[in-house]
């Protein structure tokens, strides 16, 4: 009777000394991957915030003053993805990046985005590449550094630029213009999604916002 029940990983075995010799497996989510209410709250609240700010505030107007050429607005395009990196910083769960971008994309669609339902796909594509970026950086031991976040953010924000240029059939424009636009997309990702996202995440944690990791 004094023998304690042994728990090894998710498989629980009853002690042999008692008559009950059944063994069973824990049901439901494995504990470390459980979606908490806080995860969902962060993903959807910040996603909605991002959807409103990204679609209704014309950030590109300022850039057109400083860099008047086509593709210059990519310099601020990172504001579309920063929300996902903030949520990832608070939760450290990669599926939260998808949830944030899904809610953001849905809201942009409902607010009448010119790309219609395609904007949801674009948001999920950005989420996918941001996840890949974080995965690579964490594999290289740069998961918490500014460099790691910067490159992951750049990776997450980069691919929407060629995607939109293909969609808009703009490749007849001079190659230097789209080269610059793609470089700007990456740089915007580095500074806005990566470094600014990391700084905001750190300030939020410092201010007492609870994390879920």
């Amino acid at each position, binding site marked *: 009777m004094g023998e304690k029940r042994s728990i090894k990983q998710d498989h629980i075995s009853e002690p042999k000394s008692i008559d009950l010799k059944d063994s069973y497996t824990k049901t439901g989510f494995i504990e470390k991957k459980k979606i908490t209410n806080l995860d969902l709250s962060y993903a959807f609240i910040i996603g909605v915030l991002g959807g409103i700010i990204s679609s209704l505030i014309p950030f590109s107007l300022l850039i057109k003053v400083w860099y*008047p050429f086509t593709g210059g607005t990519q310099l601020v395009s990172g504001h579309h993805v920063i929300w996902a990196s903030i949520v990832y910083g608070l939760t450290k769960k990669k599926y939260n990046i998808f949830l944030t971008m899904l809610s953001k994309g849905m809201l942009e669609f409902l607010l009448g985005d010119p790309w219609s339902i395609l904007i949801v796909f674009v948001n999920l594509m950005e989420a996918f590449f941001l996840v890949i970026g974080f995965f690579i950086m964490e594999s290289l031991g740069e998961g918490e550094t500014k460099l790691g976040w910067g490159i992951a953010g750049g990776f997450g924000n980069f691919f929407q630029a060629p995607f939109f240029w293909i969609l808009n059939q703009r490749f007849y424009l001079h190659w230097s213009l789209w080269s610059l636009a793609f470089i700007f997309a990456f740089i915007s990702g580095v500074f806005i999604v990566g470094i600014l996202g990391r700084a905001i995440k750190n300030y939020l944690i410092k201010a007492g916002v609870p994390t879920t990791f």
Partner: protein
Amino acid sequence: MKIRNFYIIIASIAVGMVIFWLFLFAVIELDANLFQDPNSITIKGDGINREITLTISQLKSDKYDQYIDKNFHIMNSFETEYDIIYSGVSLWSILVEENLLDLEPSSLTFQFWARDLYRSPKPLNLSLAQNYSGFVILAYEENGAPLFEEGPLRSVIDQTIMPEGEYSSQYSVQMLSEITINI
């Protein structure tokens, strides 16, 4: 300084240099005029006898054919069709009134350029502007309001006169700054 930080600085400088030279190359190669007055357009090219710059107030004068609140049918590259009401001045009337043409319009082409170096995909035959002067305009108002972010001028061509396989939305060039007329 750590070697890692040194590499980061070198990479940043390299990216900065690439951007600087690409920007310079684009300005020179595309003959960009960074200081052009946004309230004016220039008509130039080897198909006309002289280069001319006109302000919006000149373009709005009765000297040229004006089309007020005219409905334009537009189609984009996804083949979505829609109508927009524009007010503007006929391109053909500018060329005629300013007496810019020495050659037959059918031997000339026209192309629109924006301040941001966007351009219409292909040069179109000028006989299009001659035969359908009310369908090729330089618009300064949309739905009765002056063009703001897209303006102050934009080219507009009705889809009904577009050549096969061309989409009028790609020829509706925002922030219009230049029209080239070439042989």
